[in-house]
């Protein structure tokens, strides 16, 4: 094994261990300390409301391009009216949760890691601890709860906008019959497809919060350290979302066929 591979493996397993310990601390805090809902509400505003435009644009254009590509293939076999059904299932169970989570990881994960990391290098985290406040209670739990509450809402919004944008493209640009397009979408999309997406996004939200907070809390010293923690938070969150999505698809497909 080369030195860099060893280093990567050590960092990966180290990060996994720290993430597990942070999860333990989060659940311990949830049972022992009453969350400050004002802080949770502020984080919900920061994560949810401020991410809305990014997530909406992503959802809309993903739905539109998926509709166009599906139509180009389905048109060859005269299945034009099934286009929106494919968009709906694809957006609901896969693209909606994954792309929303990737966008939130980029916007919010980076911000959390930078904010917490800066607090660490300027000794504000130590100051919190000397003031009888654990960083996990004050910084991590509100972000974790806000992420769990907001991600399904953002994803649902992204899916709806994606399907609606696809419908408009299908009808106005590609000339598909709107009645059959809508009917087939309703007919071939079942509740389990949407439930799969919602469960996934809930888990992805937890992944982003834990990785971003962990990177911030363990940020190396200096401006370079904060920069590295921010980059790693986005990269590791994104990779973990993509890898876990595959396994979640397999498991959830069995549980919610």
């Amino acid at each position, binding site marked *: 094994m080369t030195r860099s591979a060893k280093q990567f493996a050590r960092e990966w397993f180290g990060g996994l261990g720290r993430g597990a310990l942070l999860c333990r601390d989060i659940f311990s805090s949830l049972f022992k300390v009453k969350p400050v809902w004002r802080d949770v509400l502020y984080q919900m505003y920061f994560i949810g409301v401020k991410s809305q435009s990014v997530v909406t644009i992503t959802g809309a254009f993903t739905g539109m391009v998926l509709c166009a590509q599906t139509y180009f293939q389905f048109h060859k076999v005269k299945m034009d009216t099934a286009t929106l059904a494919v968009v709906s299932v694809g957006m609901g169970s896969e693209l909606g949760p994954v792309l929303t989570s990737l966008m939130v990881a980029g916007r919010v994960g980076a911000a959390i890691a930078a904010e917490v990391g800066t607090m660490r290098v300027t000794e504000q985290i*130590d100051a919190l*601890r000397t003031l*009888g406040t654990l960083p996990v209670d*004050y910084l991590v739990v509100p972000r974790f709860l806000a992420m769990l509450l907001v991600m399904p809402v953002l994803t649902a919004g992204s899916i709806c906008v994606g399907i609606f944008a696809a419908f408009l493209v299908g009808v106005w640009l590609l000339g598909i019959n709107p009645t059959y397009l809508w009917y087939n979408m309703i007919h071939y999309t079942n509740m389990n497809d949407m439930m799969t997406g919602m469960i996934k996004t809930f888990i992805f939200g937890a992944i982003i919060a834990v990785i971003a907070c962990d990177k911030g809390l363990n940020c190396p010293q200096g401006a370079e350290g904060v920069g590295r923690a921010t980059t790693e938070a986005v990269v590791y969150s994104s990779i973990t979302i993509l890898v876990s999505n595959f396994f979640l698809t397999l498991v959830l497909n069995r549980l919610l066929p």
Partner: protein
Amino acid sequence: MIIEVRDLKKNFGALPVLQGVTFSVEKGEALTIIGVSGGGKSVLLKHLVGLLKPDAGEVLIGGVNIAGLSERQLLPVRRQFGMLFQGAALFDSMTVEDNVAFILNRERRFPPAEIAKKVEEVLDVVGLNGIEKKWPGELSGGMRKRVGLARAIIYRPDILLYDEPTTGLDPIASDAIDHLIIRVVQQFKVTSIAVTHDMRSARRIGKRILMLHEGRIYADQTPEELFKSSDPVIYRFVNGIADSQEKINL
């Protein structure tokens, strides 16, 4: 004894920082810890409040060894301490008022009007009236340290820790901080431990001085004894004289 440190050892990787530090502090004492930069003074201070875990040895606060306590178990122990950090460590996303009132706002034991009154009182003690609505970024280095001190004393801790209280300040501001520390110790009857390499400050704020050298307590004396010492290590440090090897390294 309010604080007792026994054979404290701490390494960072392969670098030994503390190699068996032993000392104790009586209630109400004003202690200063001096030593070269990077010699482990701040590391020692952080062990007292449980911000760092020792590799070996014991740190007893009020007779309780805090070395093995979890972060949550340490909370009541830390409530006895107030700490002024080297860069003041003010929360930069909060106003001065919210910084100073942080612990009272978290505990919610007092109504907002009473908290505001207490904030005004402690800001008055540190000589900074009328800056409640300012942000930490708008304050000078000396003002930030005084706000940090106000935040540390608002909940009347038993022990105050100062990490390099005058570092980075001009001589006038340093003098003001020294006098403020002396006044706070007298007014609030607290045990005070300051870490510094500013010899003028060490002499003024400490009734007893510990010198940390090569990871151990090298001297434990009154300021008068220390400044008259003929020991070459103490003499060179107190008078700021580098030996030939140190000059070459620079």
